């Protein structure tokens, strides 16, 4: 599910720092299982990844990560209410059919949600659209408009509005660039200079 440049995952280290040791974690769109393997090793979590691509299922099994083949667009009805400490979704929000429903489902299953997505409000995207007159193609968003899986791109502002409308509380927000660096400018103007947004959310 992840359409993000796989070589650079600036969001994973931050997530790892946020997770309490020994937690039960569900990772939506877990890709090759990198995050879960990392959380298992460094945070002693147990849990499952959901993934749609069979090639990634094979990689997860190879990495000894519990993975369940599932389509996030089909919903999460196989999971009961309040059964996970964290439900994580990295770089998949923008690729699902109904991000709003999935966010609500995440907080039905888990006590806390962690969401990361590429910020479409980043200055490079804005400049390309404004001066170039074309849909942005950047390091974090490398596909063209017609072949991208990112069908619901949003900015930090869009995401926060969606949370407010759905009574979702933002517990913590971090923005980083594609090298996992943060800067003074990013802190001051996150929606303009943050390339990747990382949020901790809870039910209000």
């Amino acid at each position, binding site marked *: 599910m992840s359409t993000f440049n796989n070589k650079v995952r600036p969001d994973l280290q931050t997530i790892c720092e946020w997770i309490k040791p020994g937690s*039960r974690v569900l990772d939506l769109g877990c890709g090759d299982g990198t995050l879960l393997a990392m959380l298992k090793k460094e945070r002693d979590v147990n849990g*499952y990844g959901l993934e749609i691509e069979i090639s990634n299922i094979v990689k997860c099994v*190879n990495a000894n990560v519990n993975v*369940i083949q599932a389509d996030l667009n089909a919903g999460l009805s*196989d*999971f009961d209410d309040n059964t996970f400490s964290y439900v994580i979704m990295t770089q998949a929000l923008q690729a699902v059919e109904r991000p709003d429903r999935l966010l609500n489902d995440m907080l039905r299953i888990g006590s806390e949600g962690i969401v990361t997505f590429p910020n479409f409000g980043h200055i490079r995207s804005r400049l390309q659209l404004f001066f170039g007159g074309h849909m942005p193609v950047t390091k974090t968003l490398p596909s063209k408009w017609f072949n991208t899986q990112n069908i619901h791109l949003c900015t930090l502002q869009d995401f926060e509005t969606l949370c407010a409308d759905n009574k979702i509380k933002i517990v913590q927000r971090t923005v980083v660039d594609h090298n996992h660096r943060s800067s003074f400018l990013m802190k001051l103007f996150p929606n303009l200079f943050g390339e990747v947004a990382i949020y901790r959310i809870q039910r209000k």
Partner: protein
Amino acid sequence: MPDTLPENSVGLVTAQTMHFDVPLALACGRSFDNYDITYETYGELNSDHSNAILICHALSSDHHAAGYHSMEDRKPGWWETCIGPGKVIDTNHFFVVCMNNLGGCKGSTGPASTNPETNKPYGPDFPIVTVKDWVESQARFTDKLEIKTWLAIIGGSLGGMQVLQWNIDFPERIKHAAVIAAAPKLTAQNIGFNEVARQAIMHDVDFHDGRYYEHDTVPRRGLMLARMLGHITYLSDDAMREKFGRELRQGKISYGFDVDFQVESYLRYQGESFVDRFDANTYLLMTKALDYFDPAADFDDDLSKALSHAQANFLVISFSSDWRFAPERSREIVKALQNNNHDVSYAEVVVPHGHDAFLMPINDYLDVFGAWMGHLVKEVSS
């Protein structure tokens, strides 16, 4: 018949039979005082008996899971795709065991065996055996092999049901469990198909209430019909369309009831060849075992509760076009396991082949299965 045996085959194998004389009480209330279990093994058991894998067979198969009985054999064992040196279930590393279940017709005590009380074949007097009974008999067999814990128990379809039952009845004796194209219980539609198959057999004039051995006949037509029906349900609509379409056998229709279409010819062939290798009473028994399987029934109809004591690391696999044991049924198993926080991975392989896909060399399927088995190889090699 092969001139030479393929290098990645276990080669020529011989079945063995083990006799049991400790009474086995069955779910139906009856019991066996004595019975035989026929089985095959492939690969070598290591010194601490930690590399043993039990294969559980499905409705119409038996203990002959891999290799050839003679150079004259037309086909190898039923899971040659997966079992052999260098294959997914690698006999270079594992000691693989497959036994013919009680009630079978390939050597283990079954309806054609002599009933010691009457000195005639059991026929319809053979007790109904359940998946739970089989697992109990398999556990006793395990004791005789001096295997304390199975490294893995693996099964497809009805075999997958036995794997589940093992995890309920003997959780401490299994380290890894693979449940392929299975279900936690049959649907009404599934039981319906089984009932039609049974009626076909029982209404054959040669059935003689199951005592056809004594009449020196075989309910050929009934068993053939049962198999033809079953075969349709093991394939998908797409698979049949792709394989046969509306292709005509003679190039034109005959305006009669002889075989016109290739699919008719194929089904008749499948049905007829099945009659030569399978016993009608065994078919009746196996379908009943399938129908009765519902381990959650003893746990308030809660499969999660039934599997709460499982300790194994699970792999569950289903096939997208399998409508007899649909992916939804496998997901019920996965849900019950994840409710208990058990280790489980699940793959839903996209294929057009239907239920029979679990016997076929399908890349995605073997890749996932192989990746999972790879950890077992490491476990026995370390």
